[in-house]
């Protein structure tokens, strides 16, 4: 289980981006983290991953503080950031270098996801376009089969067919023991796949609920209502 306890964080010289936030994420859930630009969605993902040190509070993954970055904890977590660089090497060599760190790595899942994305199984990563890099990175993330998978704006840079491929790849690649948190402001891209919504705005959690699969919801309208724009 992933627990966020009374988390407060501010970048130096700025006001609190996150203030006294407490949340819980359970296995088997696909959580949509929604909010306007600049509300701290990416910051929250970095705090969960242990990439930022909170001013107060803590993030606990199975009882361990994620900022301490224990290898055992890190091997169960993976983040797909909004922007990233691929190394100047082939996918095969990159996978061979990463594999020893992630005991649950599954090459079949990688090949399945690449097939969904219509990407070859071996390529030089530096030669890919931004959208292609994203597809490869998402495929890698899913094949690592970490307990916690964080995705920051995963559909940014993907064309419309690729967004549909993303949903298929995610459905194929995820499992019931995973906690998947997708941070996005492009609600329509993920509303078919998430089963739990957390909305944040101005340091407040506007909504933190499971979605009823029987009752489809227009998340965009719901979000606008929550922030008072509708």
């Amino acid at each position, binding site marked *: 289980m992933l627990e966020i306890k009374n988390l407060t964080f501010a*970048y*130096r010289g700025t006001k609190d981006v996150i203030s006294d936030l407490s949340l819980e994420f359970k296995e088997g859930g696909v959580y949509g983290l929604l909010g306007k630009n600049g509300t701290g969605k990416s910051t929250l993902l*970095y705090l969960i*991953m*242990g*990439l*930022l*040190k909170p001013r107060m509070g803590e993030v606990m993954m199975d009882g361990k503080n994620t900022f301490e*970055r*224990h*290898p*055992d904890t*890190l*091997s169960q*977590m*993976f*983040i797909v*950031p909004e*922007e*990233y*660089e691929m*190394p*100047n*090497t082939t996918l095969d*060599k*990159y996978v*061979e*270098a*990463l594999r*020893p*760190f*992630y005991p649950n790595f599954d090459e079949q899942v990688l090949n399945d996801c690449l097939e969904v994305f219509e990407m070859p199984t071996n390529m030089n990563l530096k030669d890919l376009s931004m959208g292609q890099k994203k597809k490869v990175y998402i495929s890698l993330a899913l094949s690592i089969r970490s307990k916690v998978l964080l995705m920051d704006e995963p559909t940014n840079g993907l064309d419309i067919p690729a967004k549909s491929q993303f949903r298929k790849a995610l459905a194929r690649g995820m499992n019931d023991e995973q906690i998947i948190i997708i941070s996005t402001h492009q609600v329509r891209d993920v509303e078919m796949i998430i089963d739990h919504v957390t909305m944040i705005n101005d340091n407040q959690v506007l909504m933190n609920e499971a979605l009823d699969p029987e009752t489809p919801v227009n998340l965009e309208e719901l979000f606008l209502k929550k922030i008072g724009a509708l």
Partner: protein
Amino acid sequence: MNTSNIKNFAKYDLTINKVFYRNMIIMSLCIAVGISALGFMGRYMLYSSATAMGPVMPYDYAHFRNPQVTMVFLSIFIGMLPCIFAGCTFHNLRKKQGRIMELTLPTSNKEKYIWHIIVSVGFGFLLTLASVLVADLFNYLLHICVFGNEYTYSMTAKMFDILSINIPEAELAQQATKFPIYSLLSSMRLLIITSSIMGTCAYIYGNSVKYHYNIIITYGIMLGASIILAIGISVIFGAAHVNVEGDKIKGMSTDEIGMMNDLTILFYCLAAAFATIAGICVWRSYKRYCNAQITTATNK
């Protein structure tokens, strides 16, 4: 700590930074060979001009075998390259994306840090040595082609000769009856070694604070500190050995043995201080690495 984790991290680092390491090797070799080539070209131009003047200005060929200026520049290269390597210890953290990958990789901070030190210090030192040897070989081959076998020697051997205190043993023993020369020589050697180590550690620490422009900033700080230290030592040591009669300075002390003893003590104290500073730099850089974040005040 697990050595297989260090090996896995090493393999990962070499895979993603293959181009970076290759470029560092090429750059080091090119600079060293370039210094050697330019030095030789300069000497050859002088030799050609001198032989063209012939009887008007007869010249001994021996002058043109002597690559002293080249050795000066190679010595600067030997001093600078390990510092540059040390300043690139945490090169993976230069960019935000690199920080994400490095800091979330499931290996302990200690294991990652050890690998970074092995590369920046160990590999840096070996590459410096290899570059100098290649430059030396290049110089030797050029000399063979132009001047023949008779007038060549190894620059590397000569530089080590100059660095080692090359005083005949009999003369040392004779001087030792008048001055505490053995202690002084030991203290000088220790000071040279500890100051080199401290310099390298300072660049490692500088890189842990700032991931961009750290080499220039660290160099500036070290230069400033060296100047202040040199002035301070000169003033204090000079003042301690000045003869004062009444309120007038009558000149420097003639107690040479006393000065030698004080100098020896000073060198040992400085060596101890440098070793301590080096240890603190390594410890603090490790702590900073453990607490590294994706964004900080000094690294955006």
